[in-house]
């Protein structure tokens, strides 16, 4: 009687790539809720646009590349890219902006490099940087937080999202983020800034601190589910904190902000737990991940403090994506039985 034959192992773990992606999506929920609470429904509109474009573009690319569409769509990786880009964009960003961003992310950064797993650069960050360079005005039009009392209404948000809102109105309800303010400020004590601007909350900017804490919670959830190891995010946060501490002078105008401010501001936690941990584009070995994360942390601080852009996570990540193969090359783990072996005790008792 003939039995089917298969190659070993015959047993496999429960984790699948689709499951990993679904967990990542799930882990972004707290952050999305925090963003929506503090900045209005604009974030949800971003998400809706981004996810629709992502699925459509992914399907189109798979079709062009003659791959089974359903099979590859089911790995949910396009949705992860969409969500990560959508939460990084200013809430209620115009639809065409999102479309261009997704085009850059899904078509250029992902499929033109060979699709899932072959992309050297994080697609969401490629999309972000392309937009930032091409449309700096729209990309820096961040909406005011609930705490400022000028929360964007639902109708306004939809108008903006459909690109129907007049520019004057957009300008009227745009507010610099705390990171922007800190960079632009040159004459006051940081404490004065705090008091003058309603954008500042307790630690990292009104709204921002909660958004970051929410992403941190999502990240810890993924860590607990062993979706990634602690090395890269912890190294990044440690390096960023260390840099901030080194250059913090207690609050003068030239200061770069405290470690706490940097941890809880901008896209720090989103970056640390959702971007830096992207397995495809990061370093592989444990040591490599430590180096990779730490370098991103340092770069984030350098760009935030001396650079010219509202946030630095995207640039830092892309630079290190580029360096990841080199890091891998120099951090190969020692293989069993190579060097460092202990010989027999030569004397017989």
């Amino acid at each position: 009687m003939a039995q089917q034959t298969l190659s070993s192992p015959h047993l496999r773990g429960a984790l699948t790539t689709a499951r990993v992606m679904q967990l990542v999506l799930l882990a972004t929920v707290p952050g999305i809720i925090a963003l929506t609470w503090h900045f209005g429904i604009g974030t949800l509109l971003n998400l809706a646009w981004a996810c629709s474009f992502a699925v459509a573009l992914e399907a189109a690319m798979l079709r062009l590349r003659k791959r089974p569409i359903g099979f590859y769509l089911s790995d949910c990786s396009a949705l992860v890219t969409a969500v990560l880009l959508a939460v990084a964009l200013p809430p209620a960003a115009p639809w065409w902006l999102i479309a261009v961003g997704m085009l850059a992310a899904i078509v250029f950064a992902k499929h033109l490099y060979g699709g899932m797993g072959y992309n050297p650069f994080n697609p969401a960050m490629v999309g972000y940087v392309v937009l930032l360079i091409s449309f700096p005005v729209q990309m820096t039009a961040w909406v005011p937080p609930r705490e400022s009392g000028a929360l964007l209404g639902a109708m306004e948000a939809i108008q903006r999202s459909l690109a129907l809102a007049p520019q004057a109105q957009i300008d009227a309800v745009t507010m610099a983020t705390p990171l922007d303010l800190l960079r632009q400020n040159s004459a006051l004590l940081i404490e004065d800034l705090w008091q003058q601007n309603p954008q500042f909350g307790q630690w990292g900017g009104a709204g921002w601190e909660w958004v970051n804490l929410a992403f941190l919670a999502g990240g810890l959830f993924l860590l607990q589910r062993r979706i990634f190891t602690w090395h890269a995010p912890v190294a990044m946060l440690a390096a960023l904190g260390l840099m901030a501490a080194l250059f913090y002078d207690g609050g003068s105008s030239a200061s770069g902000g405290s470690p706490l401010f940097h941890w809880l501001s901008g896209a720090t936690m989103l970056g640390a737990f959702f971007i830096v941990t992207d397995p495809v584009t990061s370093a592989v070995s444990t040591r490599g991940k430590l180096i990779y994360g730490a370098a991103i942390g340092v770069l984030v601080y350098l760009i935030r403090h001396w650079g010219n852009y509202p946030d630095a996570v995207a640039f830092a990540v892309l630079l290190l994506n580029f360096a990841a193969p080199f890091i891998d090359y120099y951090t190969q783990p020692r293989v069993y039985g190579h060097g460092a072996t202990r010989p027999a005790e030569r004397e017989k008792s």
Partner: protein
Amino acid sequence: MKPLATFHGGIHPPENKAQSTVLPIAGASLPDELVLPLSQHIGAPARPCVEPGQQVLKGECIATAATAISAPLHAPTSGTISAIEERPVPHPSGGTGLCIVIRPDGEQRWAPRHACAAWQDLPRDQLLAQIRAAGIVGLGGAGFPTAVKAGTRPDRIIDTLIINAAECEPYITADDMLMRERAAAVVSGIEILRHLVQPATILIGIEDNKPEAIAALQAATGNSGIQVVTIPTLYPSGGEKQLIKILTAREVPSGGLPADIGVLCQNVGTAVAIHDAVVEGRPLISRITTVTGASCQQPRNYEVLIGTPVSHLLALAGWDAKRCDRLIIGGPMMGFSVPDAAVPVVKTTNCILAPTREELPPPPPAQACIRCGLCAEACPASLLPQQLYWFARSGEHDKLEAHHLFDCIECGACSYVCPSSIPLVQYYRASKAEIRHKQREREQAERARQRFEARQERMAREAAEREARRQARAAAAAAAQAAKARADAEARPEAPIQPAADPVQAAIERARALRAGQTGDSSAASSTAPSPRQQAEQKVSTLEARLTKARKRHEEAVAGGEKTAAALASVVEKLEQQLAAARAELETTEEQT
């Protein structure tokens, strides 16, 4: 004692061991026929020493060890040799192999046994010979002849004897049950090994998921100095290299042997087989095999005669073939599936796993590698499986070797954790085979090159010899001619006048002409045109010279791999023909003159 170290990685697959430890070990019934493959071990296949039709007794040797690394086979029961033929064998390649088939007579009549209770008094060599003659091989899975492994060279110091009782693969409980039921035999076997190897330390490594076996061993070892080391359950702690690392904190060097770091590792089942062979004079004719999987009504362990068809054993365990998805020999991590339940149990068969489809579902289609690194985290050899996969797919053999593909123990931990369900181990196996194949090809090419060079040399030498011979012949011929001419000249006054057609006469004429030429009298020879014979001679020597030159050019062209080689070969051929023709012509002219 506590374990000294841990190895990198490892996984915790569901154990599934409880179902087959409910019942004690049972003796499997006698099947209708026993099929004994000649190759059940690492090394040369055994050489049959029986004929079809011959009667054999239980324990009688039916095939002898063919070389130093080989193992003999014994009749597991008394009966008749019914055939020596190709049968399906349990092998990953799924093919057939030469087997001795025995039809049991059901009487279980034993051949004379050589029990040796006082083995302490035996010299080492004799003890090893007894182990070798009993056909004992590593029962843990690899099947390396035990006498070879235990008989290490005297210059190798073995300070640690490790008994592998980890049994880390899910489902398998053969060693567990053996230790529970025959702990005394385990210890007795270890004592024999201690006598042979004289180690300073003896460690039994056992996973902490076998409390009964641990208790039994602890009771049996007492204060013998044998230490039972309980290690955390973690697959693959029973891998030889991993167990050595755990127990001694030493690493077997890549490409080396445990003996290189002073360690000898033996499986518990092997220790019992040694006890049986030495103390009871019972060769290796049976083993403990776990029969398990959800398609078996009552999973349990059997003491099985080697050669029992798997189907017979499955029937005993209440196997439902319809529910069974595939048949696995060995465990779910490293076992291989066989297409046919007719294959026999061999010396290394520790488990027969007959799972249902729900139990061990076939892998879903592989997705792209997302470089999540879970495989690298799990790999007990600290390899980077995702990189190996990458290089295996692109066929970059150099990179594979640089990333230590050959240190992969094929444990399957990487495939187990891979969320994209990529059959990583399959890629590694295929790449290893490819690389080995290429290496063989390289070696063959190298040998061919050496052969070619040797041939070239030989041909050159022969050509030189031919040339030397030819010159010698020519010189001899010239000398003979001269001598003859002299003789003729001396004989001339007495010689009768011969007709012109007479060869003797012609020779005289020739000699005269020659002499005339030599003495400066040109009237006789130099004024006349060269004779046909001279012409022919001339032709032959020119052709010979040309041929030698052409041969040389041809050889150079072949050695240098030039494209002109073929053309030159035909030139050589043509010249050879011409030369042959010229030589024939020369002969006829000689006859004519």
